[in-house]
């Protein structure tokens, strides 16, 4: 009778999440279910979209490091399971996700807030657990039965520049039970690789202390009410299962330090380009703890102040978002407009501080020139911008800066 029922279920194609075996099990049957083929296709689509938008970060120092870390943490996959692959996403949002293709994506934003190699390892271990346990497929099968609407996010997100989040979120959103399983399995991988188990609650504690806007909304890596409960059960699990796990974090490797410096700088650049001035300040605060190049920090502090002075409306919008006071956007904008001169002066003092630390720092000359241009100090603008242009033949923004110089010269000639 039981066999008959099973046969009937199989014939009807009624696959259940409970039947899905992890990739460590030789009977995983990867790709056997129609539903899995469907979500694999969608995963490839999401990956291609990330790639075509230049969102897959290609810096070898960073990518190789993360891949080596993942290889150290991952359990042995059974034969015919897909290989585990790790990618770094050029996005300043604090987020990470795993797709059913066994591909893990870690945002630069998340890498920049992790305070140690062990904390970054904890996040990667959590994502590896999602892959190994095939939570993407299990969720898809559950969703199929419950007829939950999905992908609506794609259209809602259309036009935000973060379209990939729609597809990715629908493929990488898991139940509370699956999240807990990923935490516990991840903890196991972390300890097996020689890292202290406490790194996992510690990194979740970091996420809880983040400012609004730093994490992707709805992501498990954003601050939310269940975060504290999660830290509590992780601590309980560590006390019961891993009492001997060292409490002290091991010293970070030299490779980690080199990787972190690059990640922090790229994160600052992305946030500046998106005019997220307050978040950039936050990134600079973090970078200050680690960086060996204070001139670079001074330069970026100058860029933030210049950005705020140049676009008070963007600064007002940013402040309104960060303080969760959308109705006050105009008020904030007016305040930034009133402080324009003060912000330009602050920018100049940061650029000068950068030049004091490193006299040949070309970007600081550029910054000084741009402020002088904005303030109508034509002779200063020409001098500083031409110094910048003379610093390197291969400047990416040569055409842009040359146009500014041309405009300033035209303006000076007319006066």
């Amino acid at each position, binding site marked *: 009778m039981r066999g008959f029922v099973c046969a009937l279920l199989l014939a009807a194609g009624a696959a259940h999440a409970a039947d899905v075996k992890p990739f460590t099990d030789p009977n995983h049957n990867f790709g056997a279910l129609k539903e899995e083929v469907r979500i694999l296709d969608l995963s490839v*689509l999401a990956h291609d979209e990330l790639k075509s938008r*230049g*969102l897959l*970060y290609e810096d070898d120092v960073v990518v190789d490091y993360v891949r080596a870390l993942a290889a150290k943490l991952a359990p042995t996959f059974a034969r015919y399971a897909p290989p585990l692959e790790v990618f770094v996403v050029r996005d300043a949002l604090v987020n990470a996700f795993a797709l059913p293709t066994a591909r893990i994506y870690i945002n630069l934003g998340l890498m920049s807030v992790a305070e140690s190699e062990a904390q970054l390892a904890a996040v990667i271990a959590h994502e590896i657990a999602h892959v190994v346990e095939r939570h993407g497929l299990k969720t898809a099968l559950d969703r199929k039965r419950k007829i939950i*609407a999905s992908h*609506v996010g*794609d*259209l809602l997100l259309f036009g935000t520049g973060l379209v990939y989040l729609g597809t990715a979120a629908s493929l990488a959103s898991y139940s509370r039970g699956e999240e807990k399983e990923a935490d516990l399995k991840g903890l196991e991988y972390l300890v097996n690789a020689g890292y202290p188990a406490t790194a996992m609650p510690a990194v979740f504690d970091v996420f809880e202390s983040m400012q609004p806007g730093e994490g992707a909304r709805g992501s498990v890596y954003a601050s939310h009410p269940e975060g504290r409960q999660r830290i509590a059960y992780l601590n309980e699990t560590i006390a019961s299962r891993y009492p001997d796990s060292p409490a002290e974090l091991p010293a970070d490797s030299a490779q980690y330090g080199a990787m972190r410096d690059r990640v922090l700088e790229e994160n600052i650049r992305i946030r500046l380009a*998106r005019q997220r001035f307050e978040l950039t300040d936050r990134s600079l605060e973090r970078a200050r703890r680690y960086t060996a190049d204070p001139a670079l920090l001074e330069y970026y502090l100058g860029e933030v102040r210049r950005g705020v002075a140049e676009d008070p409306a963007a600064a007002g919008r940013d402040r309104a978002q960060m303080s969760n006071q959308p109705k006050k956007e105009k008020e904030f904008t007016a305040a930034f407009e009133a402080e324009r001169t003060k912000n330009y002066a602050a920018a100049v003092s940061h650029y000068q501080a950068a030049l004091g630390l490193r006299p040949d720092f070309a970007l600081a000359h550029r910054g000084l020139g741009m402020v002088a241009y904005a303030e109508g100090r034509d002779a200063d603008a020409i001098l500083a911008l031409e110094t910048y242009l003379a610093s390197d033949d291969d400047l990416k923004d040569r*055409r842009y800066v040359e146009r500014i110089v041309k405009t300033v010269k035209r303006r000076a000639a007319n006066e």
Partner: protein
Amino acid sequence: MSRITSGARAIGIAVCIVLLAACATKPTTTAREHPDIDTALLDVERVVVAPAIVSIERIVFSGENERLTAQEARIAAELEAATAVALGARGYEVVPFDFNAAREADADLAFALNQVTEAFNRVKGDMQLGRAIPEEKKRQFAESLGEAVNQVADAADADAVVIVQFGGFDKSGGQQAKEMASSILLGVLLGSTAIQPSEGSYVEVALVDGVTGNLLWADAAGAAKLGSELVVRALASVPADIDPTDPASDVVVPDDGQPASAPETLAVEEAPNPSA
């Protein structure tokens, strides 16, 4: 009850008449222009059309909507071609450039393109792109997409970059049947009914100065139909190129029956709502 209803209806009709009268006396447009557009166009000769960003979904009864990737690719190619033709007709030299190959070889260029798109999506909200405004207010939008545009324009050796974004949907037979049944039920209960469109699309186009990053011109259009031809309507208001050697430019704008700006263009609020 019926008195209240007829009273409300009368007020509604009166409001519509007032609005229509206002529209009749004050020409409106969905176009947006930079205050310095005339000066900026003196430096614009060569333009490049960035890869169109297209998102099309089939809305299905189960909620597991399907992305129509083949249709996306086809419509993207059509949009890019139609945009190039329309700009060529307005006197611009359209630079052919294989962005797909270039961004495959250069992740930084791909990222710059993405930054341009993100910046456009930020400023279009500020500009309320798609909303009709009085014609005389269209040249009040001093927006910039930042320095990333420069990188894109440089790669193609162009003076300006054209951005095209398209969103569309259609509905499966099951979804249409469900909506039809809902409409009939509502009709029985309320005495009136509204049929939801079975497909729709929306397009936004922008011309961006490749050096300064200033958004020189933008417009949008929507329709209860899924097709790339919509872009021609959105492009109807694009200004003709200005020849720097001849300030009183002789560029001939083809008589395509479209006014310089398109007051009849469907505004955002009128575009079909895919999630309806």
